[in-house]
């Protein structure tokens, strides 16, 4: 029989207190569990990590290194702060700083990704355009460049530029646009430096343009007055023009020797003389090895006078002669400058010119009849 004795009452009170403590622990624990589960900044930080990974994959380290670095710093700060908060006892944890870092990192991360994508696209387009532009320029200017008597080191630089452009194209194909841009710029510097030097050389040569134009004017007037034919050889752009009574009738493409730029001074200089000449003899069959030829009266009196002056000044060695056998001949059309100072035409053109010319036909050889700009435009090359 149960009775409310002092002993029984203490038992009952002790049991009640124990159950209350246990219930409190369970309830408190559940509360804390739910509370901390909700309070963890896991989701925010994960978003930033994904943004960082995406930005890195898009090339942020190349295109937006500063923004990427800043985002990374904020992400690391969030992680450190999170770690520090986790070291505290659960009820004292406060993730607001972690969230604040994560929020800032997210904003910066978004900007990093946007900027990276934009720069990536621009970089791709710019590199493609840069490569295309340089290739286009090279395709137009290279034929001119190859004809110029430039120092070997200049040509070396040009070839190095071409190699770098190939490297830029390989980088482009691999999607390495920053690397490709760097190579493209270096290539452009080398190629354009070579072109500028070539241009300077041409500009120096074209100083004589007024004199050439005056010579041409006189020769054409003479042709009109004498109702005569006239052959004019222009070195840049290279062409041979046949006039009748001062009227242009035919134009032919021509090739010269390696040192075509400037007047012939002596034998072996592989230069084509400039000035007024005439056809001395017409050669064909066994008389010439170049299909058909018009032998010029080089050296004329003026050439001899200049040669003597140069020799007196010691500009030409004593054993060197003035040279000769300068012809307008066939076997040309090779796309390169290969003669020893003669003017070469393709055989079919030579046929026509040979039939039109006679012994004594005046020949004027000049550097150019038009300005350098126009001449370059004729080549399809215009300076930007």
């Amino acid at each position, binding site marked *: 029989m149960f009775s409310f004795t002092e002993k029984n009452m203490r038992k009952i009170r002790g049991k009640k207190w124990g159950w209350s403590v246990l219930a409190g622990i369970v309830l408190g624990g559940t509360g804390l*569990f739910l509370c901390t589960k909700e309070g963890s900044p896991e989701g925010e930080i994960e978003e930033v990590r994904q943004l960082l990974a995406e930005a890195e994959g898009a090339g942020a380290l190349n295109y937006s290194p500063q923004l990427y670095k800043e985002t990374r710093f904020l992400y690391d700060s969030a992680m450190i702060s999170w770690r520090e908060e986790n070291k505290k006892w659960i009820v004292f944890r406060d993730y607001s700083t972690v969230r604040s870092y994560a929020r800032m990192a997210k904003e910066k991360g978004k900007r990093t990704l946007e900027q990276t994508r934009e720069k990536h696209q621009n970089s791709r387009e710019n590199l493609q355009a840069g490569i295309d532009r340089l290739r286009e320029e090279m395709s137009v200017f290279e034929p001119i460049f190859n004809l110029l008597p430039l120092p070997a080191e200049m040509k070396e630089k040009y070839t190095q530029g071409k190699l770098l452009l190939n490297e830029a194209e390989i980088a482009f194909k691999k999607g390495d646009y920053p690397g490709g841009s760097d190579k493209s710029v270096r290539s452009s510097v080398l190629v354009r430096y070579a072109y500028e030097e070539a241009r300077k050389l041409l500009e120096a040569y074209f100083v004589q343009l007024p004199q050439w134009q005056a010579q041409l004017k006189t020769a054409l007037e003479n042709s009109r007055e004498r109702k005569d034919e006239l052959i004019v050889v222009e070195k840049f752009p290279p062409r041979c023009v046949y006039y009748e009574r001062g009227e242009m009738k035919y134009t032919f493409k021509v090739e010269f020797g390696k040192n075509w730029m400037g007047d012939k001074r002596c034998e072996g200089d592989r230069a084509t003389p400039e000035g007024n000449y005439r056809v001395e003899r017409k050669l064909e069959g066994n008389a010439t090895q170049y299909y058909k030829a018009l032998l010029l009266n080089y050296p004329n009196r003026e050439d001899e006078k200049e040669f003597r002056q140069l020799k007196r000044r010691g500009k030409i060695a004593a054993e060197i002669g003035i040279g000769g056998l300068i012809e307008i001949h066939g076997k040309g059309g090779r796309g390169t400058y290969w003669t020893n100072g003669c003017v070469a035409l393709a055989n079919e053109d030579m046929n026509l010119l040979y039939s039109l010319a006679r012994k004594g036909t005046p020949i004027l050889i000049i550097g150019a009849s038009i300005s350098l700009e126009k001449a370059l435009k004729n080549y399809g090359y215009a300076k930007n």
Partner: protein
Amino acid sequence: MKNRLFLVFAMVMMAILASGCGKMPQESIRAAKSAVDAAKNAQADIYMASEYKALEDSLNVMMQKIEAENSKFMKDFGEVKTQLEALTVQAEKVTTAVPAKKEAVKTEAETMVTTIKDNLAATRTLLAKAPRGKEGRAAITQITGELNVIETRVKEVEAALREDINYAEALDRLNAAQKSVTDINTELTEAIAKKKGR
């Protein structure tokens, strides 16, 4: 007596709950981090770039998971520990695979050097067959100049291949040189054919 035991039990329970159940897998974290570092030191970021990136990213995920567990009232690091161990194994695999990848790129670059040298020699032979005398001299001089520049470039890269360089970059430079030689060879072959046809 029973009440005292009950109280002790309750306090132990409280202590356990307060401190959480799991312990951070410090050793697994250290092992994973050092395995990823080892992969980088082995140049996995150059020769196995995508694999290395995946390792780095996975490590970040693991570190987040650890903090997520640390944030919980009831911690359980069992899953993340297993994942860290798997990451360590993967990183070690990548580290082991890098030398072979690197060697393969190096071998490819060395093979390319031989190919370019052969092509250079073939182009020079073609050049020797080109018409001599005054006719092709200018073009020959020009082409010879270009071939010399390319040859110098190839020799530079060949010498660099003996050092511990970025072989992938070296291979790109060689590919560019190879393209230039091929272009010259084609140009020369066409010019010779054109001459023969005339």
